[in-house]
């Protein structure tokens, strides 16, 4: 735990206690997470690194309320997610969390504009407000001229940026990003990271998975996942 984070806030945003995730049963069971603990304070910028298959995405999916742990507890803003029903979890995801998937997960045969607009529709934002904020978000990721394109008409990097725009458009307090720069060239990577820095500066909490050293370097601290176990990286910035 860094001193800087301690100064900023009171209760942790993310509080994971002895949490495990097992896929499958018996012989073929995969222990993706083994009794992990994690504390993330409000406004912290955390990078998660680790080998492929170590359990990073599994952790992030649970943090994003997209999946449920096999055992252990997960408190989001002090609230045990297991106590929420489907509907409450949906609303929580919509209002609190911006999620960027490793595999983009754009809705096929649907325009860039409609994809980015989608979370605001479920949030009940007015049509006009949606239009303005969608335009602004697309501008931010440099895709204003691709608003009417469908996912299959976009390059991998462009799709990734649409996914970023979609995660940011609701101005979530918590941003969870699964390799958001995995498909980007260095210039675009810088743009996205600058964007994250800006969000960080306004007090958003960010948890980001990455393979790249220079991406992790921008975070307050780095957590290493090794075969389902978490460890703070030695030599984290103060």
């Amino acid at each position, binding site marked *: 735990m860094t001193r800087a984070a301690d100064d900023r806030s009171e209760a942790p945003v993310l509080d994971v206690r002895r949490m495990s995730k097992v896929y499958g049963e018996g012989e073929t069971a995969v222990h993706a997470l083994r009794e992990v603990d994690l504390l993330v304070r409000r406004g912290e910028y955390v990078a998660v690194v680790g080998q492929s298959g170590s359990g990073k995405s599994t952790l992030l999916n649970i943090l994003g309320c997209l999946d449920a742990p096999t055992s252990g507890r997960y408190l989001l803003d002090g609230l045990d997610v297991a106590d929420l029903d489907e509907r409450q979890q949906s609303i929580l995801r919509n209002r609190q969390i911006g999620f960027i998937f490793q595999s983009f*997960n754009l809705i096929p045969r649907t325009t860039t504009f409609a994809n980015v607009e989608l979370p605001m529709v479920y949030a009940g934002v007015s049509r006009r407000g949606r239009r303005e904020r969608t335009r602004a978000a697309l501008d931010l990721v440099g895709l204003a001229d691709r608003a009417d394109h469908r996912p299959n008409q976009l390059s991998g990097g462009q799709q990734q940026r649409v996914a970023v725009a979609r995660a940011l458009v609701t101005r979530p307090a918590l941003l969870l990003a699964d390799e958001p720069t995995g498909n980007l060239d260095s210039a675009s990577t810088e743009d996205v990271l600058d964007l994250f820095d800006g969000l960080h500066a306004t007090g958003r909490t960010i948890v980001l998975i990455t393979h790249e050293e220079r991406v992790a370097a921008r975070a307050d601290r780095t957590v290493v996942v090794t075969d389902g176990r978490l460890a703070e990286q030695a030599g984290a910035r103060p």
Partner: protein
Amino acid sequence: MSSVEILRFAVRALVANRLRSLLTMLGIVIGIAAVILLTALGNGAAKFIQSQITGLGANSITVIARAASGTAGASAGASSRPLTAADAAALADPQGAPDVAYVAPVVQTSATVASGPNSETDTVIGSTPDYFPGANQVVASGRGYDQADLTAARPVAVLGRTVADDMFGVGSVPLGRTVLLNGSPFQVIGILQAKGQGGPGANPDTNVLAPLTAVQSTFTGFGNLNQIVVGARTTDSQNAAESEVYSIIDRRHGITNPNNRDYQLISSAQIAQVLDQTLSTFSLLLAGIAGISLLVGGIGITNIMLVSVTERTREIGIRKALGATPSAILAQFLVESVILSALAGAIGVAIGIGGTLIPLPGGFRAVVVPGAVIAAVVVSIAIGVFFGGYPARRAARLRPIEALRRE
């Protein structure tokens, strides 16, 4: 999330998946059109046949001579007897047959009808004035023959509409003109109302009606009768009149076993009953076929809806991940199903009703059954909603990550 947004999502998804939407609709369109067309055909046939039955006299019973039935040995000695004028007289006896209002003995023969260059072979029917109500024959112009014509055996004739058309021109009213029946001149005194084709060889419009006495003296001689038309006093007394006719003729023909009768009775009530049974069987058959096509259409819808929802499970996962509540997901898919099936239902109804306007051979029209239209639309929309809704409900309950992992 407002209902306008749900509607926009649904329309957008339907347009995005044009081909599949059209295929789904095709199943419903065909199902509904088939139900409407088949029931309309059945209904039209029923109406057509009913209109033919009313061509028979309402309260009348026709006695027709026939060979004794049964095996040859069974009715030894009971040789077949023809109907005679005496039989007719016995039926007219108010003592033995109190429910009989009138009796019209009938002789009929086929004869060449000619006028000028025109000539054809028609059926000439000789009877009494009671034959007109008995056979439900209405004189459209001129008059029918009366008791005086009968008594005097006057050679007067009432022509069926087709006969008048053929002899004197279509739509003509040749009152006072003369036709030659097998060469004998008969004066035309009336034209019958057109009735239309009642079945092969039984078109009453090609008959020529004349007094019994005139027909007997000119063609058949004063021998046996072909039929005796008996009128009951009222519709209610038709059954009573029927049994009186049976007992009188049985006695006169010496018949002990009703199965060996050498004559038979035909009444409009009897025919209506038989036809009613036939028709309801026929309608049931058509309704069955219609039901099966609706079922097949329904299975098609179910299939495509299942595929559609399964294929879009990932999309459902994305929407859930972005904060769609289960009820928002469900609403979107339900609205999609309803739009699809309602649109397809409207097209199906249009095609079905349009199809009934196509003229059919045999002179009958398909008549739309409103109940079938409503049932078809309700059933197919219900199928669409249920089978679209069920998999959507299942998908809406999945954890987002599970839905996202589906391919």
